[in-house]
């Protein structure tokens, strides 16, 4: 049994350095500790200037996504014991610009998320007096998996397509669009279609499938995108065969 484990933490202080460097920290090894606990130990005891994001420390808020030994992980769900004897390399999420140390700039993701209109769109809102939009358990089950996304951006850090082309809307936003498309209460599929059927939308995805493997919530963004591709292709084929039909 070891007493301590070494973390190699990426540091980037834009006012001091032009590119990131690694700093080594020795932290106590505790089998119940996750990488985030080790970072908190560093911040509390060793170097208060270390910057990173975290909040719930229980896999719900999606703030603490980082690269751990080269793989995108929620640091609150990644145990130190998995990496014994170390060292553990902690870096900011790949493919995003780094603001400081382990904190990345996420405006791009936020803009993309908003662009797919991830909310229920109704052609005409029903008056409140008519009550809620009902849904059967089967209808819920249709999209439920895709609704578990916590916007942690880990799938973006796993996606080489996003790394190579930042115009790509990306796994989480596309999966979320599909989540609303598959919701029986939603009527916004046509409204989302223009954006999603662009090259930067579903067709940008080459089905590397890493997003699904990396997702800490089993959302399966790659599956969502392929299902949407299949649907878009069928719709196109239908409109090709029956041009007089509905658009």
């Amino acid at each position, binding site marked *: 049994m070891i007493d301590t484990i070494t973390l190699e933490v990426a540091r980037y202080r*834009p006012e001091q350095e032009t590119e*990131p460097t690694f700093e080594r920290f020795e932290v106590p090894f505790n089998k119940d500790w996750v990488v985030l606990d080790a970072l908190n130990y560093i911040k509390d005891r060793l170097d208060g200037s270390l910057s990173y994001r975290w909040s719930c420390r229980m896999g719900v808020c999606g703030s603490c996504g980082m690269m751990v030994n080269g793989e995108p992980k929620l640091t609150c769900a990644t145990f130190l014991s998995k990496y014994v004897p170390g060292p553990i390399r902690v870096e900011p999420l790949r493919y995003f610009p780094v*603001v400081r140390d382990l904190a990345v700039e996420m*405006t791009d993701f936020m*803009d993309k998320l908003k662009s797919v209109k991830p909310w229920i769109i109704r052609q005409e809102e029903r008056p409140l007096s008519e009550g809620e939009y009902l849904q059967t*358990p089967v209808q819920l089950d249709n999209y439920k998996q895709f609704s578990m996304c916590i916007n942690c951006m880990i799938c973006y850090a796993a996606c080489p397509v996003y790394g190579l082309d930042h115009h790509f809307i990306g796994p989480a936003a596309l999966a979320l669009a599909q989540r609303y498309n598959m919701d029986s209460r939603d009527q916004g599929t046509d409204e989302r279609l223009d954006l999603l059927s662009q090259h930067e939308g579903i067709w940008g995805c080459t*089905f590397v499938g890493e997003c699904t493997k990396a997702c800490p919530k089993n959302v399966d963004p790659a599956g969502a995108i392929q299902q949407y591709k299949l649907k878009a292709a069928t719709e196109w084929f239908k409109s090709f065969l029956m041009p007089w039909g509905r658009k």
Partner: protein
Amino acid sequence: MKETHNYTLYHPKWYRERVSTYWWARQWSYFRFILRELSSIFVAYFVVLILFLLHALSQGPESYAAIQEWLRTPFAITLNFISLLFTLFHTITWFNLTPRAMPVRIGGKRLPDWMIAAPNYVAWVVISAIVAWFVIGG
């Protein structure tokens, strides 16, 4: 990506890592993906080869014999062997991916993945058997 702000003391300068040209060589899963993308070249090669064979067939026995001659060269055998491996890899991975793109629900329950993938394999075997029967037996 919006980069509208200039660097000031209070608006830090971002660091953006450049993606290496060899990004696919650093991770096995990425490498496997690139192999799969490459495999489509070999699939296309087989299609072109069949077109050439058909063309030769339409030109008469001499030109068909010429192409058969070429197919017997070590180069052609090696090329076809490698292409076969890539085509098999392409086919198997493609079949295994179908359940992801086509979730089938019966009675509200999603069918297990193997039940979506299996019919592909069955169709593959049956069609291959028919083709083999035509080529060898017929």
